[in-house]
């Protein structure tokens, strides 16, 4: 039986990471001095720029590569990235918004049951791996989806994948496996 379709699981996307290029060299010092809400980190060679709306933080490199983190959806990520590029444009750089790509999506999900991790790992070798001395969660890698699920015994799981769709699929895929290994008191 596949009970997964009957349950409405709340998958909450907590972080979407994206990158894009401005296709032009960026003077970090200028951005650090003139930009608003910026943190210049010369020791690392990047500038952090934070946006309030959407709430994102971007790491800006002088090569023009920008990594954007903190968004809660893919659309928001794109919007934030564009706003950011617009900021840089206002400072005076000839930015182009190119090669936008969402690279990582992190979501959490709370399952309504607890899980017997050892059993789960045994059942799903070698896809699942569990090393309690290193990390309290069992990790389950879905190769074709390029996603990873971390399973905690409490029933909480975190899913990371290249996009929202793969994350959703991963949850669907793993749910029955977890359901089997739940810690019911019977």
């Amino acid at each position, binding site marked *: 039986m596949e009970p997964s379709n009957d349950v409405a699981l709340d998958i909450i996307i907590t972080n979407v990471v994206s990158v894009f290029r401005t*296709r032009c060299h960026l003077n970090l010092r*200028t951005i650090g*001095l*003139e930009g*608003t*809400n*910026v*943190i210049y980190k010369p020791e690392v060679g990047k500038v952090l720029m*934070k*946006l*309030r*709306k959407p709430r994102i933080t971007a790491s800006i490199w002088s090569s023009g590569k920008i990594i954007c983190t903190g968004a809660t959806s893919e659309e928001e990520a794109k*919007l934030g990235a*564009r*706003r950011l*590029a*617009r*900021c840089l*444009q*206002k*400072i*005076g750089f*000839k*930015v*182009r*918004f*190119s090669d*936008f790509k969402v690279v990582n999506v992190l979501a959490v999900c709370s399952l309504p049951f607890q899980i017997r991790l050892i059993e789960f790992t045994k059942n799903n070798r070698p896809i699942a791996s569990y090393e309690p001395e290193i990390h309290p969660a069992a990790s389950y890698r879905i190769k074709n989806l390029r996603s990873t699920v971390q399973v905690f015994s409490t029933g909480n799981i975190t899913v990371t994948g290249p996009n929202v769709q793969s994350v959703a699929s991963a949850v669907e895929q793993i749910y029955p496996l977890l359901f089997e290994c739940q810690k019911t008191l019977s």
Partner: protein
Amino acid sequence: MLSNANSLPKLYLSVIEDVIESIRELFSDEGVEERVLDNLRQLWESKVVQSKAVEGFIKGNNPSNFVLQLPANYSQSLHKPTVVIPAAQNMPSFSSKASSCGSVATFSLPAGITYPVQIPAGVTLQTASGHFYKVNVPVMVTRGAQHVLSHPAAVARSSALTQRPDPAPAASVCETPPTLQSADGPSPAASDSQTEFTLDGIEFSPQPVDPSAASPFTPPAQALRREQDTAADDALPDLQTTPDIKLETDFNFNQLLDITQLDGVADSSSDTEEDDDDDDLGLVGENEFLGMINAAEEEELEEEEDPLNSGDDVSEQDIPEIFDTENVIVCQYDKIHRSKNRWKFYLKDGVMCYGGKDYVFSKAVGEAEW
């Protein structure tokens, strides 16, 4: 902030002093006249006064200038008062002042004098602002608060007293002469600020001491600002206040008797409103970039895939940037720390211009949420 306001004029003056002196030689080497240097100094001082960033800033301050005016009969025994001044001090420079009263000698205590200074009875004191006080009992002049001579009623009455209507908040006793509407030719009250001595427990007789009938007295009220000190008021219950004097009863006392240190550890340059202003040193828009910015705003930046429309879709002006405050802090930092959106600032050695006023600190701690 009171204590800050007290020392700030002095600090700024000393800065001006230092700079002017140190460039004097350079100026002369370059062949620039002294006059230019003086001009510069005056310009500078006037700008400071204009900016109103500092309270009680008087040009040409002579620190600790304290003019003692002695009645004629004391001229012989002038040494008497000098004796009581601690021997360690230089003899006060004494200059005979040919005033209208004729037989009055004045001298001023040098800057380096350390208080307390004891003044015997019968001495007439004249502060630089022109207020006269006759001391009836031996007086101990201590380096007190802004209250130059503590008791308003101690002043001899004058015929044409002008009161300063509102108690200037300036901690400095020497209320800036411009604000003094003293009928007597206002000699700069500059010295008062630095004298800062209290004459407690003195019984001043209200008799007019001014030998010259013409010159009016201004009550020390004007020189004294004692807003919160009631104790001293109580000390002289029997001071006679002449009817035509409208005494200032609120004096800016400046509580220097129990100075609380408001900077350093106790500094609360809280940045709740400042938000990101700390980072904004006002270095915006240097000329080179203004042109670029303007140009960029007008163009649309087209690219192959997605054009970044100028302002339409991707404008970031949602956030009302309430930024154009002039509140700035210029300082050094010990540590600036951030956790998520909580910021902590450990700053040192700086000047804050807040609400148009300058505050100088050696240590400042702040917290903010972004």
